[in-house]
């Protein structure tokens, strides 16, 4: 039953991704000013939206770990696996956003990168979570998870700053399309393509987040079994 449910979810996600691509390439019109290069937005914006959601998942996991680590070690380990999965999949989506953005900028602005507030805070966000993953990879011991949780919480604090950067400061990055100043927004013929891709990439993200969570839970059990075997061997 579980396998059927997972298979069904994978199939729905694949259809959504195909449909999102079809909408972005064949249904949405070219932008009047930017032409075809504008279509990068259909992958760029959903990637960051999903990354922000998963960094929030990582924040919840980090807070959960700190809350449970003394009283309920099993729950703490579940929360820690969630924090790691959220951070890692968030970094994957953030990397997509940080590579598709410069490809758009090179054509739209004539430069690959500029140190404006939106781009810089986004790069800092990516660096914080990459350092989180590196710290987990190359350190060990009982304090590692606690330190990772604290770093994860600090990393999440950058998410609202990234989101608000082009509202608080004048940036080269375009003004917010949704929830921006008066006159902002997107033509109705383009909104559908963006929303379908948002849904498709979110579904894909949940799928790989789930896989990463399960892999980490397995890793925790293997580590526990190895520790037990080492104790019995003494």
């Amino acid at each position, binding site marked *: 039953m579980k396998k059927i449910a997972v298979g069904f979810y994978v199939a729905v996600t694949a259809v959504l991704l195909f449909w999102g*691509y079809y909408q972005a390439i064949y249904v949405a019109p070219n932008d009047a000013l*930017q*032409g*075809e*290069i504008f*279509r*990068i937005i259909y*992958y*760029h914006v959903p*990637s960051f939206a999903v990354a922000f959601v998963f960094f929030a998942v990582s924040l919840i996991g980090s807070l959960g770990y700190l809350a449970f680590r003394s009283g309920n070690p099993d729950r703490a380990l579940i929360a820690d696996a969630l924090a790691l999965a959220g951070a890692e*999949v968030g970094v*994957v989506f953030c*990397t*997509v956003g940080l*590579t*598709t953005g410069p*490809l*758009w900028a*090179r*054509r739209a602005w004539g430069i690959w990168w500029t140190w404006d507030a939106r781009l810089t805070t986004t790069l800092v966000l990516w660096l914080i979570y990459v350092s989180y993953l590196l710290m987990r990879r190359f350190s060990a011991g009982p304090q590692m998870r606690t330190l990772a949780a604290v770093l994860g919480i600090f990393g999440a604090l950058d998410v609202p700053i990234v989101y608000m950067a082009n509202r608080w400061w004048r940036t080269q990055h375009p003004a917010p399309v949704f929830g921006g100043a008066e006159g902002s927004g997107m033509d109705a013929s383009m909104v559908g393509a963006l929303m379908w891709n948002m849904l498709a990439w979110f579904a*894909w993200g949940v799928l*790989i987040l789930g*896989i*990463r969570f399960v*892999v980490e*839970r*397995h*890793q925790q*059990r*293997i580590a526990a*079994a*190895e520790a037990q*075997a080492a104790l019995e061997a003494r």
Partner: protein
Amino acid sequence: MDQAAVLDHQFRVAAYLVTWTIQLGYVLWLTIKWRAQKREAVRLGIDRSLKSR
């Protein structure tokens, strides 16, 4: 098609390819990690406990 439109097309294709390469590359890495875990679980004799959860 003029030169600018051709370049726009190439950059758009590059952006979509980069997206899929990163995503599928990550899934490939997860698959390799999962398979390594399975071998490790068999070595430790806990492969049944992993399956049952």
